[in-house]
């Protein structure tokens, strides 16, 4: 069992001929990911890295039975690529691309309202189910299979958490990177629900983000989940100088609550264990 991605998930790579995709795709295949097609508009060749190429996502889906796509398309063209994948009714789209304009993501979120597609990202390392498959740019040498589900807004901090929990003898069922942009496709709540239904996952680690109020939404939703699995949230405090920026001011203006202290309080009130360092995280995991 796994969440969102396993060794049987048939995956398309959009923008497969680019430098980054050309580097990360063979690594993912070697890891076990079933990459069945590449999509390049106005393609010149029929194959790249030994994978068949198609002009459109729709065609790739029809010919290969793919249900998911990894988007490596440069930021300027990412809106069109993600929209195409949503229009083709793929179940899952993982957008690796960073630097997509905010207004483009506003449009994509509008589009997602009338669709069943789950969009993870953008600006995410993706999803990895250790020893099975991954969609994204995960370091392939640090993960270990186990029963901890990880959901995170930060990519680099996730790698740190994985290194630490593996050192302590644990492993991961699936790791889901939500992405660290102002507007992301999917928040914590949806993934918490999926981990809760996943037989392999025994506990969830939630890693807080540097912006946004997604943790608050998750805290409130968690209260309503019947037989919820334990969650430990890693919320690292921002030093003051990290807070003096406009995006934080905007969040406070929009939401009313977003200081890390207030987020922590809300998470605790929902029965979620809150820690603020990696060592405390391991300590709490060991108690479960």
């Amino acid at each position, binding site marked *: 069992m796994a969440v969102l991605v396993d060794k049987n998930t048939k995956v398309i790579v959009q923008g497969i001929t680019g430098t*980054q995709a050309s*580097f*990360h795709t063979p690594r993912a295949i070697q890891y076990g990911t079933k990459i069945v097609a590449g999509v390049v508009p106005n393609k010149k060749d029929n194959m790249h890295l030994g994978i068949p190429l198609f002009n459109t996502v729709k065609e790739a889906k029809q010919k290969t039975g793919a249900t998911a796509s990894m988007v490596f398309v440069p930021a*300027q063209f990412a809106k069109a690529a993600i929209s195409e994948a949503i229009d083709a009714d793929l179940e899952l789209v993982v957008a*690796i691309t*960073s*630097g*997509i*304009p*905010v*207004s483009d*993501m*506003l449009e994509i*979120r*509008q589009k997602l309202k009338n669709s069943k597609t789950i969009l993870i990202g953008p*600006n995410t*390392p993706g999803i990895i189910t250790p020893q099975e498959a991954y969609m994204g*740019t*995960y*370091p*392939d040498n640090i993960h270990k299979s186990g029963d901890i589900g990880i959901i*995170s*807004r*930060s*990519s*680099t*901090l*996730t*790698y*740190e958490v994985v*290194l630490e929990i593996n050192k302590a003898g644990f492993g991961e069922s699936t790791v889901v990177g939500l992405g*660290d942009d*102002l*507007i992301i496709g999917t928040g914590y709540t949806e993934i918490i629900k999926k981990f809760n239904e996943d037989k392999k996952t025994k506990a969830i680690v939630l*890693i807080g983000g*540097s*912006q*946004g*109020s997604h943790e608050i*939404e998750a805290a409130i939703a968690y209260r309503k989940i019947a037989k919820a699995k334990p969650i430990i949230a890693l919320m*690292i*405090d921002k*030093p003051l*100088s*990290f807070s*003096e920026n*406009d*995006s934080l*001011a*905007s*969040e*406070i*203006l*929009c*939401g*009313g609550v977003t*200081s890390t202290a207030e987020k922590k309080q809300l998470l605790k009130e929902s029965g979620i264990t809150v820690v*603020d*360092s*990696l060592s405390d995280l391991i300590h709490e995991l060991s108690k479960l």
Partner: protein
Amino acid sequence: MNIYEYQAKGIFKKFGVNVPSGLIAYTPMEAQNVAQKLSPEGPWIVKAQVRAGGRNIGKFMDKRAGKKGGIRLSKTPEEVYNNAEEMIENRLITAQTSNRGMLVSRVYIEEYIKTFQKFYFSLVVNGATASVMLLLAPVTPNGDDDIVEMATHMPSQILKIDLGFEKSIHAEALSRIADFMQFHGKKSQLKSFINKLLDIFYNYDATKLEINPIGIDKNDTLWALDAKIIFDDNALYRHPDILRLRPMAEIEEREVVVAKFGFDYKELNTGIGIITNGNGVALNIITEAQKCDADIACSLNIKGGVDRDKIAASIKLIMTNPSVDGIFIDIVGGFTRCNLVADGIIAVANDLGLNIPIVVRFEGTNKDEAVNILNASQLPIQIADSTYSGIMLAKAAIAEDL
């Protein structure tokens, strides 16, 4: 990206938003001259131009400017001259700048408009709901209200309207705004004022458009007395006219490099300069450093997609900060390939030489290759196997070096 108030007002004017007439001045003499050109009688407002808010309640670093802030009413041309002289080439410290403040290279001289009511206004992108919010709040005449403070402690004082993805204001929202402001003028004026601001917001891919304050004069005319636009850095390629307004040489060199490479750079204290490839890691290092009693001078997040040039630029940049006594490069590579980082470090070392201690930690993609590259280079770079040991090594190296 953020631009100066006078540049934002230029855009407002182009879109037909009502702003006071004003002119820019780079010297006190110029300030006095343009004031008289604007109006023979005055009074005028002298406004320090920095790319940060909170100017009115800010303080200047050099004491010659007295205790007053960066926005000053001036009744005579001499007063304009004196205020400009106190501000230009001085550093203005506000709640939104570091404790070193920002250099004032120019002042904006404006005709004074007497208004009777003032409101904070902004359009912001709400990330969680993926929609645009309109925010409005009454402010006191002296304008020293901190809107964030207000949102935190008296949220009911702020009118918040979720505009979704609508590109013009609808009738119901307009009525709520008019009632909230107790606006007696024509609704068509209010509607067109807001719609023009929405036009600017969407046309320029802004993530925030802020006016603090909007003033209402005795004829019920609306004035944008201030203007601030924050542009989405990722959409600047669509707006070459805005790109041209990016910080240039007169701003500190570090800011130029930060803008060019899209780094996230924060100055903190004196001690270790950190280079990382993610915000999460940066925050973790700072937490660890506190535990180890190590001081952090600054933190530079190079973000993803690191190549040799980016890492080289980041090390060069951090070396120009006089508060940095040693560097700790902590890279956890996923997308980022550690070997490219190692190449960049060696390029700088060969280029500039290493005059301060450098500690490096690699984890993740191509880690072994990167460690081999550094070892083979025989440069005096220490390699750490964890964030904790990296901080301890850097701390010890600095102590030895000083």
